[in-house]
């Protein structure tokens, strides 16, 4: 569809939010008691922040929840009965105020979950999702969207992208049918744009991701991995805060005669992630696991999924307890 551009006044934005919030689930960022930025369902407009750089966790859980029940079962004397999850019960959700990097991440996730067979849970959740993104007028040293082909106002993954203007109003880019249908439902709140300049932050490019991808080809045995992963303690923080990490574990949980099979987030950084029953572990040291993380995002995914596995949000680095700074490492990698 053809994209269009409108203007929405500050007061109208509040009305839009309130009206959306009154009729459906709206997932919007707030600043919590402990000063961390988190997304919540239907907070009051006054609570919603427009001034955040990044939320502690990404918003991938909207399409790929940290726990997803796959089916329920009940064990009888001789047979078990399985109850499927009713996907139609998945509600429509408006994701509000997520930044371009997080929104672009949905494309990266899609490249995995819809790579060959469509993951029906992911696809259904995506189908029910409308993304009203927000361009960035703030950034910090961890941001590197410009190094992975994105920008503070990339429209990828958004249905509507809001960009702040100097006077507090917002430019609204209507990017998809879903976006258009929202705008049409609330057309009185949108005005035509006068072409004012949007306020955007500048994010310095730190590396050339294509160069990284080509260097990685053949760098599997490079001493770089051991030297640069010594301080990695092997937790799963980077994977769990990452908007594109898609690894999951599948478990059965039985209590009495009833049980469920679910999937939950996992991390390739854990030492047990690749442990075989035999005791053999193909990635038996942390350097191998760190290499996997970078290889997967910058070599295997571009190769197999035609998508980069990184959107430059910087969460893995800002959330890392030992400052494993991915942008710094990628910058170094392009020169090995």
């Amino acid at each position: 569809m053809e994209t269009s551009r409108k203007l929405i006044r500050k007061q109208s934005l509040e009305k839009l939010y309130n009206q959306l919030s009154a009729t459906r689930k709206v997932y919007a960022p707030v600043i919590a008691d402990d000063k961390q930025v988190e997304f919540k369902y239907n907070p009051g407009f006054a609570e919603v922040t427009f001034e955040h750089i990044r939320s502690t966790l990404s918003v991938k859980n909207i399409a790929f929840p940290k726990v997803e029940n796959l089916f329920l079962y009940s064990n009888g004397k001789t047979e078990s009965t399985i109850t499927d999850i009713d996907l139609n019960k998945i509600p429509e959700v408006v994701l509000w105020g997520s930044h371009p990097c997080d929104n672009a991440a949905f494309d990266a996730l899609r490249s995995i979950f819809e790579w060959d067979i469509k993951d029906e849970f992911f696809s259904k959740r995506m189908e029910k999702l409308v993304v009203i993104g927000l361009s960035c007028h703030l950034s910090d040293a961890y941001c590197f969207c410009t190094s992975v082909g994105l920008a503070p106002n990339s429209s990828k993954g958004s249905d509507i992208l809001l960009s702040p203007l100097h006077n507090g109003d917002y430019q609204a880019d209507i990017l998809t049918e879903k976006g258009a249908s929202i705008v049409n439902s609330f057309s009185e709140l949108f005005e035509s744009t006068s072409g004012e300049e949007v306020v955007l932050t500048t994010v310095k490019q730190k590396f050339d991701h294509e160069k990284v991808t080509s260097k990685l080809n053949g760098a599997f045995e490079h001493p770089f991995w051991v030297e640069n992963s010594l301080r990695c303690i092997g937790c799963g923080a980077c994977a769990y805060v990452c908007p594109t990490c898609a690894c999951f574990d599948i478990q059965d949980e039985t209590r009495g005669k009833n049980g469920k099979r679910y999937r939950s987030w996992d991390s390739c950084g854990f030492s047990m992630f690749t442990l075989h029953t035999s005791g053999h572990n193909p990635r038996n040291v942390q350097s191998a696991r760190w290499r996997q993380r970078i290889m997967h995002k910058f070599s295997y995914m571009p190769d197999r999924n035609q998508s980069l596995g990184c959107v430059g949000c910087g969460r893995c680095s800002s959330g890392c307890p030992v400052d494993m700074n991915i942008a710094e490492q990628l910058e170094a990698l392009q020169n090995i």
Partner: protein
Amino acid sequence: MSDFEPKVVAFVCNWCTYAGADLTGTSRIKYASNVKIIRFPCTGRIDFMLLLKAFANGADGIIVSGCHPNDCHYTSGNFHAKRRWIMFKELMDFMGVDMNRITFSWVSAAEGAKWADVVNTTVTRLREMGPYVSYRDLVNKSVEEEVKNE
């Protein structure tokens, strides 16, 4: 609340309290049927995680009981258990888990009457306290967390 009957799981050692409870039986002393006993070789064997699992699976109260100090069949298992329970109790208190729902006792193989008393006192107290709603809510809430659309 008057007809509420608490579910109580008792974790007991084989040599003292289990035998003491046997003696309660042979002496035909009656006590509340709410309690169900799990036999362990020694209180030293009782993993604190099992107590949490009992609550998570719907127990309203727990009894942990073994040999009196110095009477351990294995000489020192109950002393180790004692230290473990001291730490566990302090941690639970700090986290706001209601320790009035757990009775810790020493019941010897000769104390059949004491066993009945421990059970009855615990059950009476739990009847007054009511079902352990806050813990059950925690578990149920966790189930809701899973199914909610994130």
